[in-house]
């Protein structure tokens, strides 16, 4: 809808301080669709030149940027090949280049790594990082949570079109922190005493897992264990993974359909 593909039934929105229906604002927006399909009778060079021209780039700019962006996505050797003969990964790379060629301020990437091998995924991560350094804002829409976790600063969970949760991945989460503890002599009264700092504790032999709401409590828990005569061999705080957050926020009844 923000890109003008779907018409709103009601309401209004602004993007980069302009009405989202403005065509001009799209000069500052880059987009890689999930179902990326391009004119397959064009060569990679011609496709980038076409999209650059549509974004208002001058012939001189095109002469510089088209080869540079082909190089960026690793397709220089295939610049004169028609897209008809490209693999899915190669199409995704050229798609990424067309989304960036006009150096937009805002970039929407819909599942940009779905067709890529590990090398390609790393390339996309590096490109996104470079775009952030350039000052662009990148929206990454993905179901590959490991990619999101590595790449993004902030994550927003959307279910049936509604934002149902968000998480700042740059700082420690305010939510629960799980700590894995391996120690000798763990006894039931120790677990009871830990309840003043923890929300749950699970003991299995020498392995104890506790959950707490604040990183600040961790030194106190460790001091308490040591002062209680417990031999602590391992004390590892584990941040809740994005996947766990996802499952927690989406709810177990969601079958991902």
């Amino acid at each position, binding site marked *: 809808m923000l890109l003008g593909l779907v018409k709103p039934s009601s309401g209004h929105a602004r993007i980069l301080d302009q009405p989202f229906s403005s*065509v001009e604002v*799209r000069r500052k*927006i880059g987009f890689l*669709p999930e*179902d990326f*399909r*391009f004119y397959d009778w064009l060569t990679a060079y011609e496709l980038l030149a076409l*999209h650059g021209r*549509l974004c208002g780039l001058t012939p001189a700019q095109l002469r510089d940027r088209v080869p540079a962006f082909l190089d960026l996505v690793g397709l220089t050797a295939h610049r004169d090949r028609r897209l008809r003969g490209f693999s899915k990964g190669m199409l995704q790379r050229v798609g990424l280049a067309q989304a960036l060629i006009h150096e937009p301020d805002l970039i929407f990437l819909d599942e940009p790594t779905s067709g890529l091998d590990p090398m390609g995924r790393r390339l996309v991560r590096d490109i996104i990082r470079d775009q952030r350094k350039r000052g662009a804002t990148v929206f990454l829409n993905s179901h590959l949570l490991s990619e999101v976790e590595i790449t993004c600063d902030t994550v927003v969970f959307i279910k049936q079109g509604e934002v149902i949760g968000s998480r700042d991945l740059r700082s420690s989460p305010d939510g629960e922190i799980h700590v894995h503890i391996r120690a000798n002599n763990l006894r039931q009264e120790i677990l009871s005493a830990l309840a003043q700092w923890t929300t749950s504790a699970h003991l299995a032999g020498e392995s104890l897992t506790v959950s707490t709401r604040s990183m600040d409590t961790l030194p106190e828990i460790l001091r308490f264990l040591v002062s209680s005569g417990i031999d602590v061999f391992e004390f590892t705080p584990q941040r809740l993974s994005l996947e766990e957050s996802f499952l927690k926020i989406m709810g177990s009844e969601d079958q991902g359909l």
Partner: protein
Amino acid sequence: MTLWIIARVTFREAARRKILWTALLAAAAFLFLFATGMHYQVRDAHFTRVPPVLRYQILSSILQIGFYAVDLLAVLMAVLTSVDTISGEIASCTIHAIATKPVHRSQLLLGKWLGFAAMIAVYVALVFGGVLAVGYFIGGVRVHGALQGASLVYLECLVVLTATFLFGTWFSTLTNGVVVLGMHGLAFIGGWLEQIGTVTQSDRLVTLGILSSIVMPSESVWRRASYVMQSSTARALDFSPFATRSAPSGVMMVYAVLYLLVALFAALYHFRNRDL
């Protein structure tokens, strides 16, 4: 500027995907057949004994058949090459990468329309010119009103092209093709009914023909083209089965132009307001 970028890429698509070349190859095969037929007719022993005036009329009629074939080929070319340009790109999501660029949807649709219109202009000019050349150099027949006739054939192609664009914003590729060719078929039958009605003096048949021309004026534009290219003798004698006995009026030509414009605006309006 954007309009021309889209028009150019559409024209290039037709050339690159070999649509234009294949159509021209088919047209070349037709011209070869037509020229061969004309050649043997001119040199036929019995034909050379026919009085010159009658001989000229027979060759003129053969030329009318040639124009009729050009018209049919051009209309088919207009429909078949453009039938998936809107609906196909929407269905395959190819349009997403282009429509999210700083491009007005009206520029996208008009640019494509211009690209196809240019391609059809090249096609009509070459094939129509080919038939004229065969008539002149082999048959020795000069066609009066050839430019007007070619312009009307081109107008007919534009009417059909615009209808294809309009229905392409509504329907899938297959449905679009069926609807437009069905409408042209309706107009074709209506045109014959009108001509038969004129001969048999049946007002009902004539009315049916006119109604079909209102629904789709393509065939009436062809009949006007055929009429302006007929020799006056052929008109007077109702000489050829492909000749026109009831020529559509100038008002009908104005209607065809208005039809084209309204269809184009309707296509623009619907394309601008639909989800992609």
